């Protein structure tokens, strides 16, 4: 699948991207190309810069050097108005849904429509109900506040909100983190259904291998810079879900199997060091 899609025009191109916060480098020399319609999972351990990469794609984080191109345009060179316009072509599902506490579920889902098409209020409700049905939530939740919802429901409302503008690209930040296995699988199914119903390109940041294996056409693994040698690529793996199973890279294999490996030795060394001090 990934092979056939690689022939398509890339909708997102990342070229020699570097991101730093103060003196801390988070991303180093990342280059990636995402063809339209592909579902890409970015995996890696906590702190490797997955979320930062996702936020850089949509222009929430500015690169230190390098660039992200969306549909042929460099995101960092857009004016505020152009960026606002381009962002309506994205849907972003945040890790903890990031629903607005002060609004009801209905107001949350219809927020992008009210923001960009304030004169078409009549169409908003129809669109909102369609998205709510798509994520399998009852209409009774519409009047509730985010604080009254469970974690899984909040994620689904977040997905409905991300879908309301019929985006071309969906960005998911840890969509299954903090959910029980059943609700996690519900979210996985929803992501797959969304892709079937809408011709979207999806980028899923996750450390849940089940999600990556089930939903993605292609998997990219990032590694924390602090653990890499100078000049070593931060992308440890780029291939299909089948290929990752057969990988010979010890660090990739360790991650997909969830083994602590040399981290245990590191922990013991740190503990010993602490005792000496």
């Amino acid at each position: 699948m990934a092979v056939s899609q690689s022939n398509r025009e890339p909708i997102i191109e990342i070229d020699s991207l570097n991101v730093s916060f103060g003196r801390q480098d988070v991303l180093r020399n990342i280059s990636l190309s995402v063809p339209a319609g592909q579902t890409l999972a970015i995996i890696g351990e906590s702190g490797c810069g997955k979320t930062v990469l996702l936020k850089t794609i949509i222009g929430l984080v500015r690169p230190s050097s390098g660039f992200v191109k969306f549909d042929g345009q460099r995101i960092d060179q857009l004016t505020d108005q152009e960026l606002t316009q381009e962002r309506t072509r994205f849907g972003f599902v945040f890790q903890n849904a990031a629903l607005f506490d002060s609004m009801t579920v209905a107001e949350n889902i219809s927020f992008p429509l009210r923001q960009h098409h304030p004169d078409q209020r009549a169409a908003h409700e129809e669109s909102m109900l369609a998205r709510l049905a798509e994520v399998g939530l009852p209409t009774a939740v519409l009047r509730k506040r985010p604080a009254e919802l469970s974690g899984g429901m909040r994620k689904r409302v977040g997905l409905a909100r991300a879908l309301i503008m019929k985006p071309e690209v969906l960005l998911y930040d840890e969509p299954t983190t903090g959910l029980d296995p059943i609700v996690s699988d519900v979210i996985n199914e929803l992501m797959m259904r969304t892709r079937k119903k809408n011709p979207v390109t999806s980028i899923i940041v996750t450390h849940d291998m089940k999600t990556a294996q089930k939903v993605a056409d292609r998997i990219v693994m990032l590694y924390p810079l602090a653990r890499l040698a100078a000049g070593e690529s931060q992308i440890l793996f780029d291939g299909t879900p089948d290929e990752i199973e057969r990988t010979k890279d010890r660090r990739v294999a360790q991650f997909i199997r969830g083994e602590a490996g040399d981290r245990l030795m590191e922990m013991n060394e740190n503990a010993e060091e602490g005792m000496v001090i």
Partner: protein
Amino acid sequence: MSTGIEYAPRPRRNVLSVLTDPIADLGAVVLRSIETLGDMTLFAWQTLRWLLARLPSRDALYTNMYQIGVLSLPVVALTGTFIGMVLAVQSYSQFRAFGLETQLGGVINRTMFRELGPVLAATMLAGRVGSAMAAELGTMRVTEQIDALSSMGANPIHFLVVPRFLSCLLLIPSLTIMAVFMGVVGGAAYCVFLLNIDVHHYSANSKLYVENWDLLYGVIKSVFFGATIGLVSCYRGFHCKAGAEGVGQAATSAFVQSFVVIIVLDLFLSIMLDNVYSYLWPTSPMLLNG
């Protein structure tokens, strides 16, 4: 907007570093302050730009006006009343020693109109509303709600800061007038009913020392104070550090920094407005009295 540059203390290396390190640390503090000031100026500029480019929605503006203005009225009125009475208590014995107790109204009213009214209303607003705004926006920052706004093509400054800034700016004059009015009433009530000062003389002397300019003087100051509270509190919320501690710090620093700026501004505005008055009305008898 913040560049996030860290100026870490340098490790002490040799005898000479004992002398150079404090200078380096001082330089780091100065650089950090300049960076924050520049960042805050950019924030204020963006807020003004969005304010002029597009007015906020009526719903957002009314909700903030209610929270900031209407709900602050009782506390401003109450503190204003008591400050007026406290002024009467503190001044009475000294004025009485010179037989000038009927002049108390002039002192209380002029102080309320020019100083205590605007500063009191601003302090209450910074404490009640500024901290709450910083905490609310800080929580929104920490829980990625501000990022969510941006990702949906809504500008957070236009959507979150402009309505709060505008509400502070538009409603602080009303709160100041309320504080002044209640202070005048409180001071008069205390003098007339508890200190038994003759109401006719009290009232006549009050009018002698206070004119419309004094009310305008307080209102002009309050507009600057309102703008300060709106900008500083929203800036602190937007630049909140992660976690509950970060939100707490944002709320505290919003109040402390607003208050410090208000007091410093108060001095400069007083000097400036006195100069404006003497320029506009050089022969006014108030200049001789005041």
